């Protein structure tokens, strides 16, 4: 039962343009959402999070949008830079007895020079 889904395994974006990574979830009890970035041979690194009481959170080049009615969130990276080349994981938690982070399968972002 895949409660957090990232339907695009890969995404290629030109340097300087906007990267949009998408994530869908099925568990309506989730109330906290996070994005992690992962380089090869390293553990995931926390990027940005959003609580269900908000619909947008911004941190520098990174913005996360949450659409609760659609059970959808997205990560926008503007402008995209070569160092953004990584795998991005969406994760969610929340609800009684569900404090653990549930991860999606990841999207590999490639930046084209």
């Amino acid at each position, binding site marked *: 039962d895949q409660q957090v889904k990232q339907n695009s395994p890969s995404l290629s974006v030109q340097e300087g343009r906007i990267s949009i990574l998408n994530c869908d979830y099925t568990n309506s009890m989730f109330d906290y959402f996070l994005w992690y970035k992962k380089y090869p*041979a390293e*553990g*995931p690194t*926390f990027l940005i999070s959003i*609580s269900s009481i908000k619909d947008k959170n911004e941190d520098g080049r990174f913005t996360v949008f949450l659409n609760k009615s659609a059970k959808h969130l997205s990560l926008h990276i503007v402008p995209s830079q070569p160092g953004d080349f990584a795998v991005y994981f969406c*994760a969610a938690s929340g609800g009684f007895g569900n404090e653990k982070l549930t*991860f999606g*399968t*990841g999207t590999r972002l490639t930046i084209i020079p």
Partner: protein
Amino acid sequence: EAGVAQSPRYKIIEKRQSVAFWCNPISGHATLYWYQQILGQGPKLLIQFQNNGVVDDSQLPKDRFSAERLKGVDSTLKIQPAKLEDSAVYLCASSLAYNTEAFFGQGTRLTVV
């Protein structure tokens, strides 16, 4: 601030052998997680500790996997006996509290041959 420490970084063992991984979380973090990440998939929670008590071990294969968190600080994860399908990266993470970001260690890459 020191991050989450894990050892060893790499381990190769034969099937049916046993193996143990160690994790030292960020100082003051009450919550500790062990995740398993199989190639091409997102991290899957094996066990979550709150201080030295188990919060969630629903996805831990208890016939072969065991974990403990000594005095609510560092933790060990053991596999005995190992199977080929246990080949994965084992990630330890810690967080201050519920619904806060988790910080990951570099992981231990286990290969079972």
